[in-house]
Every structure is written in structure tokens, then in C-alpha cells.
């Protein structure tokens, strides 16, 4: 008896790690709920990155420790958080002026579907059962200078999340700049999806098979690697 084939690809913290490497010193970053929240754990220590939380924080710190929560100080996921020295508070209209006005350097979001042209669907499963909740996703998709998507390459049922055209209700049009998955790092360009990196033990053809839109391999593509993380 042999063990079944091990799932290929990176673990979720590794996806966050990989995205974190692309966040430059001094960047102002907004993080969506889910995988993006892992990013601050993996930003190289010498870089100073300022986190924006759309509920009115700039310079957000790590989550509050258990027992030290201040429920007047929460993040966009309504969890207790902290403020770093240099942080500031402001109201919702000012906060989204920052977003809509193009002052956020990078926002990292999750996704249900990403289209080849950068269209994003991440707010509404359209199943008619669960009430859709949009939050700040549409504002961020349109307003942030760069939109990173962190996502499993494929849905749980194996279906493609990167597709020629989104079938789910859209969050924003041609807004995604880069996609980080367990299998690859893909840049959305004017001429289509360009694979910058993919995991070494998967061929480009195999990656293409798992993707619902045409991929191009960057001439200077690199293997996608991340350290082992807990």
C-alpha cells in the first residue's frame, strides 16, 4: 500500500508569504478577509509597510492579544486589533476617499473568479440562498493602485477560478493586477495572463490544464517557491 499522491502546491500561509515578498518598503496596503490577512506575518522585517483598514485605521498593528481586546478598535473583519505608533483614526467617508482616490498602493483580496482581462468576482455566489455582502470590495477593486488576488488556483470541486470570462456577479472590471495561487504567480497584462512563476513539480501544460483561461509563460519565469511555514 502506498500513500496517495500528495497534493501539489503551496499551503495557504505560503501563498501569503509569496505575496508579501512583492510588497515594497513604504507601501500602504489594504488586506481583505481570509488569506490576505496572513501577509503582514511575512513581510521582510526591514520593510516598513502601513496597513489601511477601511473602517477608519491607518497604521494598523497586529491583532489584539486575547484578553487585551478593545472592541472600539477593530479591523475590517470586526476583530479586535491594535494601532501602531504613527497610526491614525478617521471616519468612513475619509477612509474610502483614500481608497477611491487612488491613495492605497496595494490591496490584496480573495476571489471566486478572475477573468483573463482582470475582471473580478468575489462578493456574490449568486446562489439565491445566502444574502450577498459586498463590504468594501468594489471600492477597493476600483480604487487601489494595484490589486493582488490571493486564492486557491482551483475551487474545491476542481473547477477553474481563473477563467476566460466571469460567470458570477462582478466586483470590478479589469481591476486585477496580479494573482497569487498555490500553483503560480500570474500577472494580468493588456495582452493576457502571464505566468511569472509556477511550482516546479508542475509543468506549464499541467498548469494550463487547471486554468480556465489561456496562460502565457513569461520568458524569464521562475519556479514558485516559499519556505516551510507553520
Amino acid at each position, binding site marked *: 500500500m502506498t500513500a496517495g499522491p500528495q497534493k501539489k502546491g503551496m499551503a495557504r500561509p505560503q501563498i501569503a508569504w509569496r505575496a508579501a515578498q512583492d510588497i515594497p518598503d513604504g507601501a500602504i496596503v489594504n488586506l481583505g478577509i481570509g488569506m490576505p490577512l496572513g501577509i503582514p506575518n511575512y513581510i521582510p522585517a526591514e520593510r516598513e509597510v502601513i496597513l489601511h483598514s477601511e473602517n477608519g485605521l491607518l497604521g494598523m498593528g497586529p491583532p489584539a492579544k486575547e484578553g487585551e481586546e478593545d*472592541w472600539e478598535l477593530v479591523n475590517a473583519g*470586526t476583530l479586535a486589533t491594535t494601532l501602531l505608533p504613527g497610526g491614525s483614526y478617521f471616519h468612513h467617508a475619509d477612509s474610502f476617499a483614500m481608497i477611491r482616490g487612488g491613495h492605497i498602493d496595494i490591496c490584496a483580496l480573495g476571489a471566486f473568479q478572475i477573468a483573463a482581462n482582470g475582471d473580478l468576482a468575489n462578493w456574490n455566489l449568486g446562489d439565491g440562498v445566502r444574502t450577498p455582502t459586498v*463590504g468594501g470590495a468594489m471600492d477597493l477593486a476600483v480604487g487601489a493602485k494595484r490589486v493582488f488576488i490571493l486564492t486557491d488556483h482551483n475551487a474545491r470541486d476542481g473547477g477553474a477560478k481563473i477563467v476566460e470570462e466571469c460567470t458570477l456577479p462582478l466586483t470590478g472590471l479589469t481591476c486585477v493586477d496580479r494573482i497569487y495561487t498555490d500553483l503560480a504567480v500570474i500577472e494580468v497584462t493588456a495582452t493576457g495572463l502571464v505566468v511569472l512563476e509556477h511550482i516546479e513539480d508542475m509543468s506549464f501544460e499541467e498548469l494550463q490544464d487547471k486554468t480556465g483561461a489561456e496562460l502565457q509563460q513569461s520568458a524569464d519565469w521562475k519556479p514558485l517557491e516559499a519556505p516551510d511555514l507553520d
Partner: protein
Amino acid sequence: MINKQVSNLTVALAEIENGATVMAGGFGDAGSPNDLIHGLLECQLKGLTLIGNGVVAEDFGQGRLITAGCVVKYIASFPRGPGTTIFDAGTPTAHIELEVVPQGTLAERIRAGGAGIPGFYTGTAFGTPLAAGKETRQIDGKDYVLEQAITADVALIMAKHADRWGNLVYSKSGRNFNPIMAMGAKLTIVQVEEIVELGELDPETIATPGIFVDRVVEVENPTTLYGEP
């Protein structure tokens, strides 16, 4: 003499009518005027239109007002908070009319209402179902949606400190929707932990000048979702 302090929640919430449009501040439980919202239940109002970011818990705050049957329409960006099934198909609240608005558009529409701006253009939601039926326009080669101001009959607001002029100082992320909602209602009612003497609030820290406030009630230990304040 100007004195916006009222003696208790009942007085603070007097004269709100059936069918009123009510905005309530708060994001998560931060800055949520829970005592005013729960107090509103005792007014046994019907047919309210409620405007808020979203429901945090089904039997608390805005959620309680909705599940109690006071609300016929809810305008929110995140109507169903994590862990709730409110408004989902098959639930008792599924029939409530929902207007889901992107959070930044919701905030800007509310600010516009208070600022006398009846409409504005935004790129947010262009080409998505949340802009369906809305007028669009290309400006300098980019696509925008025309959004309309939101105003309300009543705003329920939570702040940390106030004075008798109605000046408000908030605490941390408790600002959220409160300063802009305070601007946009005919009747702005505020609960604060403490009302201080005129002149005690730092003029540089007053995020809501009293011009926007009608009534202030002191609730020393505000009701919170997570226990002790």
C-alpha cells in the same frame, strides 16, 4: 441656553414615527449605539427603513431591530455579518427589502446627504449588478456611476464624550459611520459615555461639531456585544 442633553433613552428617542428612515452608526460593535437601538425596540415602531453597515449578530443591535419586525427595508454594505443567516432565503427575515451598497459608496452617499450634494459620480460598481439601472457616464475616458445622496429622518450615533452643545469626540475606530451619519439626519440622537463641561473637549479633536447634533444622552456603561465596555 443651548443644552442638548436629555435625561434618558426614552426622552432621547421620543417622537420617532412609524415608517421613519433611521441610520445607525457602528462597524462591527465599535461605535454601535446599542442602547439607542435597543431602546428603539420599546418604541414598537413599524415600517422602518434602516441604514447601517451591517448586522453583527441576529439578536443584537441592528440585528435585533430587524428580527423584531420593525424594519421593512435595510440599506447596508455587509447586511449579513459573519456567522449570521439573517436575510438568507428561508429565514424569517428573507422578505425584508435589501439594498446592498458598496461600503465606500454607502459612506459617500451618506456624507453627500449631509453636505447638500444630491448626487456624485464614482467608478465603484461600474459594470456590476450593484450599478444595474443606474445612470452611467464617461469622464476623461473612465466609466462612472451616478449615485444619489442618502438622508434620514433619524440618526442614532455613538460617541465617547459630548458637551451640552452636542460636540462629539469618538474613540478609535468607533468613528466609522458616526460622523457622517450625524450630518445627514433631520434628528441626530447620540449616546455617549460621559457629558463633560463646555470647553473641556479639545477643539482639535471634535470630529462632530455640535451643529450636527440634536440630542445627547449619557449611557455610562454602554451595552456591548462582547461584554464589559
